[in-house]
């Protein structure tokens, strides 16, 4: 089936098998491999992208369901000049990533979270990221990153 989408501001058109998952369409057909796959039960959130500005796990959506959609993936977050998105910058400054595999999904989910709730409490951040698993960071610095991106004061270093 023909799928036409706008991804990171660019229009793509492709003929795909109806059963193709959106995440596999992005990765295997379009080469947008920044969106990762970490599970097969929609549990881990590594494949989180934005459709129409809202975070969606792209393994739960068929490519054909995204026909006509405005999609943003991690590749579309930084500025054209390479300037990191404030959320990406916050993850970097707060050491919110280690192996980096969950990171694209975390950044997408966290960005969506702040667009709905610009000043979340720590508990709201933790709840808001419940659908995204990380195995490296223990979440401590991820939560700190999101709070920092929301403008909460953050100190880097031991004892925090």
């Amino acid at each position: 089936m023909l799928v036409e989408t706008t991804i990171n501001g660019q229009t793509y058109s492709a003929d795909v098998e109806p059963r193709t998952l959106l995440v596999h369409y992005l990765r295997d057909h379009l080469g947008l491999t920044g969106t990762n796959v970490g599970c097969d039960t929609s549990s881990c959130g590594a494949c989180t992208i934005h459709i129409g500005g809202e975070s969606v796990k792209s393994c739960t959506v068929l490519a054909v369901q995204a026909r006509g959609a405005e999609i943003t993936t991690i590749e579309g977050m930084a500025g054209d000049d390479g300037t990191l998105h404030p959320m990406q910058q916050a993850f970097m400054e707060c050491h919110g990533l280690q192996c980096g595999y969950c990171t694209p999904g975390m950044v997408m989910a966290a960005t969506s979270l702040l667009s709905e709730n610009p000043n979340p409490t720590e508990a709201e951040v933790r709840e808001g990221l419940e659908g995204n698993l990380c195995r490296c960071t223990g979440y401590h610095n991820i939560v700190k990153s999101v709070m920092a991106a929301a403008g909460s004061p953050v100190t880097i270093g031991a004892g925090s």
Partner: protein
Amino acid sequence: MTAVVGTPRLRKEDPKLLTGEGKYVDDIQVAGQLWMGMVRSPYAHARINSIDTSAAEAADGVAGVYTGPQLAEMGLWIAPLPCAWPVTDDMVNPEHYPTAMDEVHHVGEIVAVVLADSRYGAADAAELVDVDYEPLDAVASIAAARDGSATAHSAHETNKAYHWPLIPDPDALEAAFANATHTVTGEFVQQRLIPAAMEPRGVLAVPSPMGGDVTLYSSTQVPHILKVMIAATTGISEAKLRIVAPAVGGGFGAKLNVNPDEILAVTLANKLGRAVRWTETRSEAAFSTHQGRGQLQKIELAADADGKITGCRVHVDADMGAYMMLITPGVPLLGSFLYTGVYDVPAFGFTCDGYFTNLTPTDAYRGAGRPEASYAIERAMDLLALEVGVGPDEIRRRNYLGGGDHFTDMETASTLVFDSGHYSPNLDAALEMSDYAGLRAEQQRRRDAGDAKQLGIGLCTYVEICGLAPSRALAGLNYGAGGWEHAMVRFLPTGKVEVVSGSTPHGQGHETSWSMIVADKLGIDPDDVTVLHSDTAISPLGLDTYGSRSLSVGGVAISMACDKVIDKAKQIAAHQMEANPDDLDFAGGTFSVKGQPGAELPIQAIAFGAFTAHDLPDGMEPNLQEQVTFDPPNFAFPFGTHVAVTEVDTETGEVELIDYIAIDDCGNQINPLIVEGQVHGGIVQGVAQALYEGASYDDAGNCRNPSLMDYLVPSAMEMPNIKTGFTTTPSTSNPLGVKGVGEAGTIGSAAAVVNAICDALSPYGVTDLEMPATPQRVWNAINGGAS
């Protein structure tokens, strides 16, 4: 240049990973590639009567279907998959090939392989292979293996794999227990854990169009070890193999192996002349990637009237799973030396029996043997505290090695020599940061009030053995490799520096830390240092990353290579400045002649001079590059005290971890930002074992929770903020005084959490809880049922 070592520094690795530019194996696409689909056994133990591949062969896009016997006949391998750690001379080691031959020994064992031209096509074709099995009795637990009424391998009469004793002085041990005032016994279950690195394992083998070379991209921690082992297993010359670990999405020990898929991809690509790839699905990973833990432990402590330990006796029954993987049998032994923990134990004895089961093989998982040991001794210390009638802090204090004072190079009852330790101040810091006295007061208040939510405070002072390892020590354990690490440091003509490291990161930030070490050594900017690694064509020598060894072995090698670079540069500088080398100082990247202000040469100028070779001392080789292979003289022994604070709902059995305090001591630190991150992540994996995770099997050997829907990797919701602090006791095992921190958190946290739950429930007579401490188990314990 201001020194950067010891200061928090943002990671070089991050911009790529944050923008989706990081390339993991599954991100790499090659024209003409074939996807492997694995036909896996649905039975834990069965005979294969026949395999019908005709429907799969006829499917669209299928390039080939191969059964185990067919692959063997094609001559794809010359030896079974390797076990590098035959712990005893008589260890049973069933032959383990990439695919089953005539009998399967665990659910998910590969029975046949299909090759197709797409990801989905391979999965479809695998479904079309029809296998006729004759089910056999399965051995689905250590208890069943010991019982022996069924055997995991029909070719073997017993499930026992080995017996391994470490009893330095049996008479002293017996006397300690005979003369003890107090004895306590703890029996603990170390449940199987699914490592669950967020990136599933994957492989991509790409044959060269000429010369018979194959490049294997693998999501592995150990490309160098893998290269040797693939050569030994397949007969393909090492010179024809290139192994690349691209961005690797976490490892935790689970990517420290030689797996069937790696052998299959390399050999099929080599045979067919086409790229061959495979990426495990998450649910498949419960069968295609080894698991961790899987032990039954019994620990006994003997003590005098004051609670001073006089003896420690341990027995472990360890679940090997269906096969011996790379270091399966050695994992419990890695812990054996640490069952005496941080304590002065005069008499010690450890025995371990390894058993085969019809379950996914076990092998290294974060800590590998050491979290198990730490759990046993730290739980037993709390039991001893109850027995003696003193607090958990006091029982520890009374028994610390060296009386809790600073020591170096101290021999322990388990025959190891601890490099350095200083335990009392570490405990003091943890008690202070946690407001221990205040917590105890609040606990008493809730007890007096009969509060439904009881407070528990759990302590653990762990010690880790890392910096694996002195090669001679490994020889003594019958381990099949050395423990050195290689580094090369080279100045490029432009004054930038390239570092080639044999360590292989998968999230630890080596590029950043190594740059910091080199920057301070050579007096240059960390951003002028490029670190090359994880590709055997670029870094041909290495022993990779596991066992918290990268810094204390690989990082030290880099530092030592910098020293050699400086030595050579000094010879050149002296020659060019017409001075005696002994009269030169080197600081901030500049050589200067003592007592001659202005007589200076920056090291970059010397590097360029070494490149042009126009004016070098007679007989000196051009270029400025040096290498070091460092074999550490001893292990390193980081330690720390963790305090877990739990709230236990006595009406529902639910446990909430409300606070966690960790005071770690990993010796000197390179980048505190990275150290702290390692501590956080390590702690959560131990907390996860204590509260949430455990691979569950039925009696037929089926895993009940292979997916992330059912296997409870914790989310941000379950975790509290973690309060970290550090003491610094430099190691004597290396010139940097560094220890290691990758596994420390995991080694300390499970015991701290379970100690906290038992502490909360001590008024209910609860002294132990099996992990994971689910609400059901906790509720049953409170209400007098089985835990």
